């Protein structure tokens, strides 16, 4: 497990008594909490780097829960969302889940349910962020390759031999070997199998 910044639970609800009671409950369970009275207020202070999860009221005046979810998705946010809603909002809940909500709880919500959902969401956030972080690393390594090395990499992961690559690229086998060594070094891998796994994660197709 990679040690990261401590997670925050963001609570957005227009009904102050409920907002404060949920905040209290979460704090009592040793979570860091940040509460907001509206979606706009939350967006104004939104920092994509902060980890944790969002406990969001579905029905709010002006910007409602679903709309906030939409805006965050567009901005590329990874923050998992737990929706809180009144009874009878099942169709909206389904819609929220389809758009990637982490959980959907009806009011009044039981503490164990809420805390469990928050824990799951935070864990999900952590995993997502870790995956996201790994991917960025690989992309960063890829970015260091020269165009020629990149070409060679695509041939290597396609399982072609140095000789075949040299013929395809119209060069000598020795040159391909040098490129290949650079690729392995820059991608920090020791075997072709490892290289194949990395490139697959980045969605790089073989030639």
């Amino acid at each position, binding site marked *: 497990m990679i040690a990261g910044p401590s997670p925050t639970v963001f609570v957005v609800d227009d*009904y102050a*008594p*409920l907002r*404060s*009671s*949920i905040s*209290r*409950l979460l*704090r*009592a*369970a040793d979570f860091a909490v940040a509460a907001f009275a509206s979606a706009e207020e939350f967006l104004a202070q939104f920092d994509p780097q902060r980890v944790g999860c969002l406990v969001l009221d579905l*029905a*709010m*005046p002006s910007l*409602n829960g679903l709309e906030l979810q939409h805006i965050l998705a567009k901005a590329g946010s990874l923050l998992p969302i737990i929706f*809180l809603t*009144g*009874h*009878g909002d099942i169709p909206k809940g389904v819609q929220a889940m389809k758009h990637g909500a982490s959980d959907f709880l009806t*009011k*009044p*919500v*039981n*503490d164990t349910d*809420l805390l469990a959902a928050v824990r799951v969401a935070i864990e999900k956030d952590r995993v997502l962020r870790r995956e996201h972080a790994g991917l960025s690393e690989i992309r960063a390594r890829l970015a260091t390759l020269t165009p020629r090395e990149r070409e060679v990499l695509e041939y290597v992961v396609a399982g072609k031999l140095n000789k075949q690559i040299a013929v395809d690229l119209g060069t000598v086998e020795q040159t391909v070997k040098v490129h290949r060594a650079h690729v392995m070094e820059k991608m920090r891998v020791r075997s072709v199998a490892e290289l194949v796994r990395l490139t697959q994660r980045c969605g790089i197709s073989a030639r």
Partner: protein
Amino acid sequence: MSWITIVWSMNAAACLTLAAIYLVVWCKQRQVLAHLVFSITAVAAAAIAGFELAMMHAGTVGQYEALIRWIHVPVWVLTVAFVAFVRLYLHAGRPWLAWSICGLRTLVLILNFILTPNLNFRRITSLRHFSWWGGEMISMPFGVANPWGLLSSVSLLLLLIFFVDATITVWRRGDRRRALVLGGSMIFGSILAWHVPLVIWGIIDVPFFLCFAYSGIVAAMGYELSYDLLHAAQLARQLQASETELRETQERMELAANAAELGMWMWDIVRDEVWITDKGRALFGFAPLEKIDFNRFRSRLHPEDRESVLQALEKSLRTGAEYESEYRAVLPDGQVRWIAGRGQVEFKGDRQPVRMRGVAVDITKRKQAEEQTAHHRNEIAHLSRVTTLGELSGSIAHELSLPLSAILSNAQAAQRVLAHGGADLTEVREILNDIVSEDKRAGEVIQRLRQWLKKGEVQQHSLRINEVVEDVLKLIHDDLINQHVTIDVELGRNLPLVTGDPVQLQQVLLNLVVNACDAMTNCDAPERRLLIRTGTETRNGNGNCAVLVSVTDRGGSIPEEKMEQIFEPFFTTKEEGMGLGLSVCRTIITAHRGKLWATNNTDRGATFHFNLPIGTSDGEEVITNNGKGS
């Protein structure tokens, strides 16, 4: 027997007949002294005729002298009676003249009996016998006239003046017929009487015919009196006819009153006595002979209506306005009866009320029917509320789930805080405070629901229309959010109070708001705007103020031909609607003495308006309309 005897005798007989008739008349009607006076006059005139006839047949001077002496008696009676008649019957003639004549005539009578042989002659020397106008032989005196006889002439002159004066008075009074007939004959008669001194002084040569001069007057008097008698008889007949008519009118009236179950009453305010028909007694449960005064009436009034009845009565007595009220009477057997009373006060000159007349009618059946109607109306209103509540159930569940959620989370947070040990008591106290206030909030929601669903009698309160608007917004708040409807509220400031049932008025407004939201479901979200406005308006242009509430949407408009149709029961444009909403709304507003109508906006959408009469400034504006009076 010659014509002279016949004529003089007939004259006497005619006078006596009249005298007898009017004596009988006077006996029946003693208060009319004129009849007695007339009777005496006629007897005196007859006596004079008798004396004159005897004088004409007198054989000796001694006889003649005695007859002249005694004729003064009926002449005195006649003169005094004439004067009395003029005074009593015509109410004319100067009193001093009347007394002078009577006094002078009495003096003449006394002197007549003192002097010898009489007042008129100092002595009669001889009698002359001759035949007059082909009649029998008659006697006429020769002699020396007595100077005291002038007194008699003076009294005759005064009598003439008296008659002339009285005639002028009667003429001026406008009674010309009487002045002509009676006054004329009196003046004419008293002029004719002047032949007596002329004969005595030997200037003219005719027998005495004083009886004719006077009987003319008697005849005129008799004519006048008979005219009066005829008139009286006619009046009596008319009176009888109008009495019959009156009785018939009374009977018709009673029949109508009984048929209409009307009790008629009259309250003598000065003596505090109430007269009331038998039907009226039955209405209030008074015994047939029971004496009724205001307090007895008051004791029959239902305690709840007593004040309003007394106020209406008091107002009527003060202003003279027609008294009108509806109230309950409690009969001695405990039965309660609804009564409508109407009445009018009669005043004496200086605005002093002296009596009040009116009617009371049993309106129990009507009231029961009204109550039945109101009951049905309330049932439908209740049903409609239940339906509306069903439509709003999501909103209401949400309204309840909010405080419940906050309570649960707060309580569970507290449990966790305490489980940690070394709890932060400040935080626990805050949590408990929040729980209490949220619980109260949930209680309010339930209270509102209970009121909303409550069945039963409609409450009449003085209320602020703006509070009704705010209560409705609380009920519908969440629904508006879910439908993305923006609500604008323009509440008039310092609006007068209205009287009504708060729940029913909420129901009307809620219906209008829900309809307006439904009308905008096809609009783009930013277009879904709803405006609720309150204010005052002047109704009918007569200065009667009303509170006006309007709900404006931006949906479609209502086709002109459906402007009224939409208020009919079972008219609906919604798939799941019953079509009762607007018709129930209209029923409710009408029961509140207001009006509900719709108009199209100039740009888009429609506006529903309703108005309500202002509060209780005037007692007559109170909806319950509990009246007063008997």
